[in-house]
């Protein structure tokens, strides 16, 4: 194993300083900084060898913790560093981080495991092995000190990067023994700390990446500059499934700065110029004739009609079943029935899709913000026509991810195809906002018909939820669909278990799905299918409560007796908001709870609706049980952010099809929540231990139903299809 392989590259963020230092040294060394690991150390003549795959300690006691998952705002970088540093007994004030590259991971047989940063998996999916990485490095460092002192390691202890031989009082630091430690065998018998003994993990520590984000110094993919780099702007056929028929390159080739006008695949045209603005302006002026293809007439109404037919179709696949719900409903004294729907939506990350690529016949390098470096490497390899070992991806902090930058790397493929047409020259592709809006990987569109059977006393005897609509897996991972079933469709409605389980026990239950896939690419959109499933179930239960004259909380509690963790967060919210007591005059409340991404969440919204129908959300109380809380102040940030994302969706979010393309092409037509509409959020973090849940996504799912149920309490209007902007809340 070569030294280079031992010490993976630190391309940009988080080791921005290394980048700046080398870029200051001159244009030629800038590119080198991306090729050669630890540019900073090498510039000084010696790379620091690692202790193990997760930890490097420099002679000056600086600690570098390797982070495989991506930082996109959710705080994973800091949280994972806390977990490693905890087990390492590191001096937190000396902790820095870096991303090992996906290529290094591949070359070393994946010591850093998965790079996928989605499904709120960043911490819960890797906490065990990253903590072991920290603990193992600590054991090696202590052993190295003990060897030097010729004493048993059991007589030594470590704290804040200092090793002490307890009987003699001798001390040394991690930096002094790191080189020797790196030569020791990696321990196999590793015992992790009991979380109750944590000193760094579990604490409200400041993020490691804040300061650069307040000075403009943080480098995002869009900001990247390489020597000799050109810039590209692209237009893909705005109609889904369409292609390029022709374009008149001669019309723009003489414009200032334009270097090349090219076809990309069979559906897109790109202009490459010296600056991005010139590339974009030239592309705007380029006459393109599209072949709009088979979907040229498709509208959202067509999609809705297809989905509606699926609500009563016979080709459904069962996701959860208890007893014979259909028979129970048929035999019931009374039925409650409703149909809900949920629209397509765009992730609308603040930073549009971008990638910088340098391609030669021997090697392809990509710099891009990605939620999954390994998937980006695979996409690069395919598009470049080179084996993965001849490709590399350098991850850069993301200007938002929300699922858009994880499963498909469509923009990376485009950028590689562009760079292939200009061998040896780095090219940065940046999408316009319009391109980003028209070529999203959209939140899937579904409808749901719910039928509850009630007995003479108004108790539920059975529930049937028929979901009709789009499967994400059919779009992005069709190989994961078995026997026609996309299990992700049933998020939050699964049988009791550790993942996305339903929080109620009905005497009989049937949840099934009729798959209907419109020709619109679907993707994982923060919160995924939990978003609409929680609306369907939580709003419908409110309908049942209303129809049977029961208090919505009392009805839920009755059905939740067998689901203590679900119930605990709901109870916590009810208690904090004072559910039994009346809210202020004109203020009305709505409740919702769900479970997904490993965590239990609930919320209560307090809203008022003016005579003119104007909604004001005054206050949200939200509770989360994530099992373990690694950084409570960042959990609060994620919960607050989840309400912004979830309420943006509920109030405004929809992408509608007309003539085969999306009608919303910028924030002027795709409105999102702003500060003036943001409610106060009170977060209750109540980790109960024994499991690890995520916090980036689950709360989004309770935002909309809590507000919708409060709107019903305020107005008597039951909104069953979103967004709210399409409805008048004015009292009839």
């Amino acid at each position, binding site marked *: 194993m070569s030294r280079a392989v031992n010490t993976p590259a630190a391309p940009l963020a988080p080791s921005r300083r290394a980048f700046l230092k080398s870029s200051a040294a001159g244009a030629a060394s800038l590119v080198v900084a991306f090729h050669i690991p630890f540019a900073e150390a090498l510039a000084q003549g010696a790379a620091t060898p690692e202790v193990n795959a997760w930890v490097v300690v420099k002679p000056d006691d600086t600690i570098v913790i390797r982070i495989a998952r991506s930082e996109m705002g959710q705080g994973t970088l800091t949280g994972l560093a806390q977990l490693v540093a905890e087990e390492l007994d590191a001096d937190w004030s000396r902790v820095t981080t870096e991303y090992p590259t996906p290529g290094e991971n591949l070359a070393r047989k994946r010591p850093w495991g998965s790079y996928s940063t989605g499904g709120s998996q960043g911490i819960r999916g890797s906490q065990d092995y990253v903590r072991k990485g920290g603990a193992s490095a600590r054991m090696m460092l202590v052993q190295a000190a003990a060897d030097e002192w010729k004493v048993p390691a059991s007589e030594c202890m470590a704290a804040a990067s200092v090793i002490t031989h307890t009987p003699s009082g001798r001390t040394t630091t991690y930096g002094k023994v790191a080189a020797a430690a790196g030569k020791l065998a990696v321990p196999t018998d590793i015992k992790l700390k009991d979380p109750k003994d944590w000193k760094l993990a579990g604490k409200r*520590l400041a993020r490691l990446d804040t*300061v650069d984000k*307040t000075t403009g110094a943080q480098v995002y993919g869009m900001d990247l500059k390489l020597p000799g780099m050109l810039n590209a702007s692209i237009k893909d056929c705005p109609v889904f499934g369409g292609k390029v028929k022709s374009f008149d390159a001669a019309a723009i080739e003489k414009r200032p700065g334009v270097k090349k006008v090219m076809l990309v695949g069979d559906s897109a045209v790109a202009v490459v110029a010296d*600056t991005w603005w010139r590339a974009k302006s030239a592309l705007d002026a380029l006459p393109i004739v599209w072949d709009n293809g088979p979907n040229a007439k498709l509208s959202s109404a067509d999609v809705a009609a297809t989905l509606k037919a699926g609500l009563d179709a016979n080709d459904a696949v069962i996701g959860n079943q208890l007893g014979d719900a259909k028979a129970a409903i048929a035999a019931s004294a009374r039925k409650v029935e409703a149909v809900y729907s949920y629209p397509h939506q765009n992730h609308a990350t603040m930073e549009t899709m971008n990638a910088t690529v340098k391609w030669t016949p021997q090697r392809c390098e990509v710099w891009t913000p990605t939620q999954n470096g390994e998937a980006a490497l695979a996409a690069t390899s395919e598009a470049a026509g080179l084996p993965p070992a001849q490709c590399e991806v350098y991850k850069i902090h993301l200007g938002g991810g929300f699922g858009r930058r994880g499963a498909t790397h469509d923009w990376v493929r485009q950028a590689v195809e562009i760079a292939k047409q200009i061998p040896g020259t780095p090219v940065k592709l940046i999408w316009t906002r319009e391109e980003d809006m028209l070529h999203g990987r959209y939140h899937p569109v579904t409808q749901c018909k719910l039928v509850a059977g009630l007995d003479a006393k108004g108790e539920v005897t059975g529930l049937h939820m028929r979901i009709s609509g789009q499967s994400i897996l059919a779009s992005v991972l069709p190989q994961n669909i078995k026997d026609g079933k996309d299990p992700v469709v049933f998020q939050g409605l699964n049988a009791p278990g550790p993942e996305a389980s339903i929080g109620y026990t009905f005497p009989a239950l049937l949840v099934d799905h009729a798959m209907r896939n419109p020709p619109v690419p679907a993707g994982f959109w923060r919160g995924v299918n939990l978003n609409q499933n929680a609306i369907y179930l939580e709003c419908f239960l409110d309908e049942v409560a209303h129809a049977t004259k029961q208090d919505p909380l009392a009805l839920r509690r009755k059905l939740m007796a067998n689901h203590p963790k679900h119930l605990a967060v709901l109870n916590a919210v009810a208690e904090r908001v004072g559910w039994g007591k009346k809210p202020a005059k004109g203020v009305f409340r709505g409740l919702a709870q769900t479970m997904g991404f490993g965590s239990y969440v609930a919320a209560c919204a307090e809203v008022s609706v003016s005579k003119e129908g104007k909604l004001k959300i005054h206050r949200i109380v939200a509770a989360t049980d994530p099992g373990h809380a690694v950084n409570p102040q960042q959990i*609060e940030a994620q919960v607050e952010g989840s309400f912004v994302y979830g309420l943006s969706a509920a109030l405004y979010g929809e992408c509608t099809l007309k003539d085969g393309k999306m009608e919303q092409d910028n924030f002027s037509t795709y409105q999102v929540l702003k500060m003036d509409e943001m409610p106060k959020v009170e977060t209750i973090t109540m980790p109960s231990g024994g499991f690890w849940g995520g916090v980036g996504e689950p709360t989004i799912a309770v935002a909309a139903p809590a507000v919708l149920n409060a709107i019903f309490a305020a107005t008597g209007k039951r909104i069953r299809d979103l967004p709210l902007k399409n409805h008048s809340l004015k009292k009839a």
Partner: protein
Amino acid sequence: MAKLNVNGTLREFEAEEDTPLLWVLREQLGLTGTKYGCGIAACGACTVHIDGEPTRSCVRPASTVTATQKIVTIEGLSKDGSHPVQKAWAALDVPQCGFCQSGMIMAAAALLKQKPKPTDADIDSAMTNICRCGTYNRVRAAIKVVAKGGDAKSAGLTIQHVGDKA
């Protein structure tokens, strides 16, 4: 050669007349702290100050700004991140992904200069920047911290910084 006064320095550049100030800053002058988010002045990620006025630079042709007008970008707000708004932002860990935050900070700095003790309504009307991560409540809290002379404790949000006493 056209000239602009950016962060106290007279800078020369070449660009077509219609080139937005944003792209001159980012591509000609190497100041990438100011971000492109929408290109239609809807999101505020490109906010800079021109003679103290918060301005969305993505729709402002650079050719309409004279060399006597003083442009300040996020890089020029302070030399070392020590502007009271930047300090409050760091104290409360406001940014998440951070992409919108340059614009947020520039908008907040302009607001606080004009109204050192802004009301919630003042904040609502001045801070129309879009954040998709959802930092709005911390943005509001940080603006209030600045209005209270930098007293981060007044926000009631406990965050342990390196160097804090345990």
